[in-house]
Every structure is written in C-alpha cells, then in structure tokens.
C-alpha cells in the first residue's frame, strides 16, 4: 500500500522516535509511507487562532501537493495535523467559493480528492484480520490503557472517526495483538497539549489525572497515537510524579511500538529505548 506521508513538525522534530517506530512498523506490514515533497506547516498551533483563512490555506497546500504528487491517501500520524487537514478539506468541499479563493492563494488546485487517514485508520485499511496471523509475539503481559487524546475523534462532524465519546478502535487493535486493554475513564480527556511550553502546571495537572486513572484501572502502560500526548505523558512523567508526589512508572508506547513488537520487531529498531519511562 502506497501512502502520502505528512510528518508535520512533530515527527521530524522532538518526536522523531515516533517516525522511527512508524517506519519500522509500517514497513513490516508492507505499507510504504512516502513523504510529501516540500510540505509546509499545517497551521495547527497558531494559525487557527489568528487567521481563519490562513488556517485553511496551509493544510490545503499540503493536500494539493499530495495530489499533485500522485497520491490518493495521506497518512498524518499527528492528530492535530490530520484534524487540520480534514477540516480544510471539509470547509472547501462545502463552499465552492472558498475553494476557489484558497486555490488561488496557494497557487494550486485544492480538489479534495486526497483522503486523509490517521494511524489507526491505516491499520484498519491493512485489515485487522490480516495483522492477526502475522503476530509473532502476542503482548500477553501488557494491560494498556488506550489513550486517544482529544483530537483523534473530535470534532465528530470533521474527523468522522470512531465514536467521539466512547471510542474503541485502538482497543480492537490491542485485542488482535494479544494485549488486554483496560476499561478506564480518561480515554479522550485532554493531556494539556501545547501548554507544556506556555503553562506547564496545566499539563502536570491534566496528565497526572490521566496517569492516575490508568493506574487505578489496572493498566501497566499506556498506548497513544499522538506525539504531543506522548511527550506530556512520557517525557513529563517524571515532573508529574514530582509535582503530585505519586509514583506511576507507566511506560507510554506509540501504537506503532506495540504493533511492531507484536510483529517481532526489536525494541531498539522501534526506538522504544529512547522513551523516558522504561519498562520495569
């Protein structure tokens, strides 16, 4: 399967362990993510707060580039990027005048033919029934709390993915890998996102609740599909523990880490050794 691949700033920057994991894992499943040439910022962080049209134009250009470069599907592993891309596609789809305007601004035709996928959807495309037979090492000792974060399933009329309040698509993948996902309460609660930089206490507070709830429901790790969430829950776990006085020690895996491990890829190849919280 050939996909356009939009890394965004995260996967080329502070979360390049995610890219490492993603390439290793998807490669094993014969999925070929090909980075879009000359991609630009998706506008996730500031654009939508400052300038509405800019926030559409930026992702629109990436969609146009993907189409020009001959792709039909586009994987954006970061949910913020995928949400921005889907939002731009939806708004232009509904308003032909807007589409024309944006097309002239980005100097490319924004036709909306490219389908934007998040990581879980890529696994669904491969087919869970085709992943199951190639699982070499079932993750029988793992009890992950599947953490979706705020953007994978919301806003529901934009992303149109899974149930916005009670998603279960990641749990379905865990089941196929032989893990035992726990039932817990904070699947879609905010981790604090970009407040890591601007107002750290927010993250310490919000992410602490997530870790606490996961632990309380018997999880021995978390799994996530968002690089920002991973930073807040993994890299900051030490700070959270110090701030709250509680001990968690919960490894936080990317979804591709767990799929990769189950398929028999080594932890080093997946970059798991680069995570902050190590498995005990």
């Amino acid at each position, binding site marked *: 399967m050939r996909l356009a691949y939009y890394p965004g700033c995260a996967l080329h920057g502070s979360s390049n362990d995610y890219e490492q994991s993603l390439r290793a894992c998807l490669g094993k499943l014969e999925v070929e993510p090909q980075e879009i040439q000359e991609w630009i910022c998706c506008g996730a962080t500031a654009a939508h707060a400052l300038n509405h049209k800019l926030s559409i134009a930026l992702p629109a250009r990436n969609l146009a580039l993907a189409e020009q470069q001959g792709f039909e599907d586009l994987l954006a592993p970061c949910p913020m990027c995928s949400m921005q891309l889907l939002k731009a596609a939806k708004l232009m789809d509904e308003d032909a005048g807007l589409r024309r305007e944006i097309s002239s601004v980005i100097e490319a035709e924004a036709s909306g033919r490219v389908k934007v996928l998040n990581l879980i959807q890529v696994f669904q495309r491969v087919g869970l029934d085709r992943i199951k037979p190639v699982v070499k090492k079932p993750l029988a000792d793992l009890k992950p709390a599947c953490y979706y974060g705020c953007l994978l399933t919301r806003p529901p009329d934009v992303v149109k993915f899974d*149930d916005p*309040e*009670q998603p279960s698509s990641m749990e379905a993948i865990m089941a196929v890998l032989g893990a035992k996902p726990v039932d817990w*309460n*904070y699947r879609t609660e905010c981790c604090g996102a970009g407040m890591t930089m601007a107002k750290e206490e927010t993250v310490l507070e919000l992410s602490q609740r997530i870790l606490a*709830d996961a632990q*309380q429901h018997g999880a021995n790790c978390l799994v996530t599909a968002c690089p920002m969430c991973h930073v807040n829950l993994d890299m900051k776990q030490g700070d959270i523990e110090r701030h709250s006085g509680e001990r968690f020690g919960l490894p936080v895996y990317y979804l591709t880490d767990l799929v990769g491990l189950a398929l028999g890829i080594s932890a080093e190849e997946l970059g798991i050794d680069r995570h902050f919280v190590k498995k005990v």
Partner: protein
Amino acid sequence: MSRIGVFVCWCGENIARTVDVAEVASASAKIPGVRCSVHYKYMCSDPGQAMIREKIERERLDAVVVASCSPHMHLKTFRKTVERAGLNPYLVEMANIREQCSWVHHDRSQATAKAAEIIRMSVEKVRQDHALQPIRVPVTRRAMVIGGGVAGIQAALDIADAGYEVVMVEREPSIGGKMAGLSETFPTLDCSQCILTPRMVEVGQHPRIKLYSYSEVEAVDGFIGNFTAKIRQKARYVDISKCTGCGECWNVCPLKRNPSEFDFKMGMRPAIYVPFPQAVPARPVIDSKTCAKLIRNGCGLCEKKCQAGAINFKDTDKVVEEKIGAVVVATGYQLYDIGKQQTGKLAGYGEYGYGKYKDVIDSLQFERLVSASGPTNGAIKRPSDGKEPKSVVFVSCVGSRDNAKGLSYCSKICCMYTAKHTMLYKHKVHDGQAHVFYMDLRSGGKGYEEFVRRAIEQDGAKYYRGRVSKITQQNSKLIVRGADTLAGTPVTIEADLVVLAAAMRPSPGVTDLARMLNVGYDEHGFLLESHPKLRPVETNAGGVFICGACHSPKDIPESVAQASAAAAKTQILFAAEELTREPEIAQINEQMCAACFACYRTCPYHAIEQAEVHTPRGVFVKKTARVNPGLCMGCGTCVAVCPSKSAELEGFTEQEIYSMVESLA
C-alpha cells in the same frame, strides 16, 4: 343555475380599504345569470345574513356567491344561512377576496380587478353546482379503547358510564400502564397506585367494559361508525375464568430470577407471575420464553399445585372479532433507550454509562426504587451494592431537546418529575443531597412552579444550569462532570447514584397500529391530530380519536383531560341516530365505467369496490367500480386517474373546475 346572487362583503375595512367593493359588485351584476349583486359591510353578521335570505326569497335565487373571507372561515356559516331560506346549502360558493386578495395586495386597481375575476370564477363554478344531500350511515354504538393506561382507563370509564359498550385492548398482562408503576405523582405527591387502582378495578368490574388483556389489535377494517377489529388474545397459559388468584403457582415456581418488566429490570419475577399485586385482571401469565415446561417439558410444578386446574400448557393465541363504531387510541409511551448504541440518529448516550455502570438508572427505574411496592419496598438503595446513596445526581434532558443525537422536542414532564424525585429522595434519605443538572425549568401547570420551588427551598435540592458531559466510575463512586453555566464553572460531583431523565417516545409498534387505522404520525411516531388547536383529540380518520402520550409527551392531568375529551367526541358520534357525512364525495357513473379499476387501486381509503351491474332479473351486465359513500373522504384522486372520467367528485366536478378555468381566459 340561472338565478345567481352575488354578495360582496366589505368586512369593515379589511376588504373595502383595498378593493372597490361597489365596482366589483356592479361588474358582477353584468355576468350572465346573476340576478342580483350587492355589497354590505359585514355579510356574516345577523343583518348581513338576513339580507342574503331576503334576496333569496325576493329574487328567487337558486345559487349564491359570497365574496368575502376564506371558505375555511365562514362557508359553514353561509351554508346554514341559505338553508334557512330554503336553498340547498351546497349551492353556495365563497370567493376569497380577503385573505387571498385585499390582505395581500395594496394596489387598489390590481386588487379590484383580481377580486372581480375571483368572483367571476365562483359564479361560473356555482352555475355548475349540484344540490347535494348529506349522506346517512348507520352507527355501531360500541367503542374500542386501545391501551389500558390512565388515559385509556379514563376514556373507557367515561364512555361506559355514558351507557355505551366499550372493548378495551391492553397489550400487557394487566392494565394500569406506566402510572401503575409510579410512586407519587406531582404536584400533589399522592400515591399513584392509590388513585389509579380503584379506577382499574372499576374497569375490570364495569358491566359495559369488555377487557382483553394481554392482547393486541391485529387489523381494523371499515369506516366511521362501522369498524370491524381483529384482536389477538395472546396465550396466557392460565385460564382466567378458573383461576382464583390464590398465588400458589407463583410461589412454587422455581425460576424466580427473571428481570421484571414492570420493575424495569430493577427487580425479579418468577416465570409464572402477576406483574404487580394490584393487577387487573389479578391473574398470572406464564412467560413462554423462560418457563421450563414450555421450553423443554420439564417442571410443571404450578400445574400440580393449582387447585382450580387453571394452568393450561396447551394454550394458544386466539383471534376474535369485535364490531365497533369508534376507536380511541391511548397507547402511551416508552422511554428513550439511553444505553443502546443505536445506528443512525438516535445514537444513545454512551458517555453516561447507562448499562455499563449499575448505579446509573433512568427515571422510571427510580420510580420503582422509590415506590413502596417496588423491588426494595421503597427504600432507596444502590443497585450495585444495596447501600443507601448519600449523593444522587439527576440529569435532565437525556435525549430530549438534542438535535445532535437525540430528539428535537421537549418531553414536558421531566422537569416536574425530577423535582419530585429530589423531594421523594430527601424525604427518605434525610442526610442525602440531590443535585440536578438542568437546561431550563419547565413547570407551567397548576401548582407546578410552587412545587419546584419547594424542592429547592424546602428540600434543599441543588440545581445546576448546565449539561453533563461524562459520567465515569472511580472506586465505587460515579464521577459526574457537568457545567454550572450561571456560575461559569465546570462542576464535578461524586455521586452514589445517577438518575437520567430520558426522553418520552411513543410506545413501540404504534406506527403499525396507525397504519391499520389510517391515522397519520409525525417523524417521531407521535400520532397526528386533525388540528393542533381546535381538534386536538380527533384524527383525520373519521371515528378514530387519540389521547394521552401517544399524541405528544404529557403528564397525568393532561392525559386524563384528553381522554375525557376523546370520550366526549365518541359520545357525539354515538348520539346521532345515524351519522351524516358531508356529501362532497366521489361518484362513479356505472354505465360509463370501463372497470379498469385504476380508482380502486388508487383510493387511499380503500373506499372503492369492485362491483357488478345486474339487470333487475339478475342477469350480469358488466363490472364496474363503485364508491362506498361511508368511506370516501372526497380527495378526488380517483377522478384524476380515471381515463374516461366516469368518476366525479361532488363539489369539485370536472364541469365546475373547467368552468372556473375557462372564466379566466
């Protein structure tokens, strides 16, 4: 008609200000056949009507055109007027020069010209009108009431007390409906069963009420005053004529742990059971899905124990026929099924944890908890561990007023019963705290606002204006996250019990019933009334009336009022010797009819039969279509599909309509 009278009304200023009534009257006088053409300030007034009558006599008029307001306003009035003067009431036409002319155009010359043309059309039409006589149809003076809840009970008692026979059909093993399961009712807090059960007994014992319990209506044929209903009596496996209600059978039944429908699964019942002690009829029924004898020929203890020999495992459904003249539909409601993730729009509220957490229940389930005869004998206990909840959260508008995943309408009763719930809770758990999340407080009935104030001021219920976003569980507490928009903060409450006020929906299967009866229903399944203000309990199907929650969400006082209204309408129907129906119905010229039966296939009321024409000696001449004058509602669809135009619609005949069109040439 060759002596037509035209009467142009000023309607005070309403018409005369824009239309030059004098000019219009004089223009109309020139139309061939018009004998007199006058104008007057208020045609519908006594002097105006007297003028019409006087002109009819003086000028020997044989048809009348009144140019004034809409026929929907006053056609009936003017029909009565001319009838008093000895003219057939169907020889009156109304030219609408007010709602459709003077009130919507401001250019005087244009409006006047248009008014003259409108009158001309009516003159040409009335010229072709036939004198018609009302149609008389016999009436069977028996009513069928479908549904034995409080509305059905009220309607049945009113009709039966007025001296007519009533057939009541109730789907559950006992009548009483939802009200029989309630604890105390607002705004008086009287015990629901205490006020209902005497009426239930009255129904059961009334000499003129024939009760089919555990039965459903399968088919209804016929028309107003002349219905035939097929009723399926489901197999009870207990002969209620022999059974004494002693209770030995359900005491001895070994299968005691079946979720009780009456308790909305908050309690258990045996496989042979009476739904509640005060049931009418107070006779048990066997659940064929769980009874060991019926499934695998085991057990049979109840049969052995029964001294009256009333158990009959070989029982089967029976279908009976009843002839009735009117139908009252009182099928009530069900609650929105919150937990089920339904496909499509009614997606359920999974985020509230209903069905996942045992201590999240809906309002009817709470009623059973609080009810003195309920599964906990009125003690408020958490379903999960039986402990007394010290903090209870009540969530309003679950499914109601929610365009995104619920229903758009307001369920009307939830604000009131939620306030009631907080009071009942507080009366039982003195150190408990009730929290209510609400959107608005709708308490418009008599004493209702005061009632809600009592809940807040006297019984200390805390009200938060905001919705609940999520309910999760932590240890054994339910974490309820909502908002208090008046304070501008999010609110998180740790509750022991959560009660969800689920939306009211019509009972399951009501749309199938509606189709049987030819009654319309809206997109939610609520049955349609004839007119929302002026005819709230009648339907567009003659002889079929509706009352209670099947029409729209409502509380007990309104259901009872509507039930009495439906009963009154039924009695009006039964009061006449014969039924008279408007004669503006279809007719088929049997000589010309080619018997293609396109009309027979098309008629929405199945009012056309396939018939034969015979000579007086009985020799077959030809096939023909024939209209049943009792059933035809006068839509004229048959006329449009008839290729030879053998079908005609009185009041809107081809001749009449074409004359109108051609007058506009």
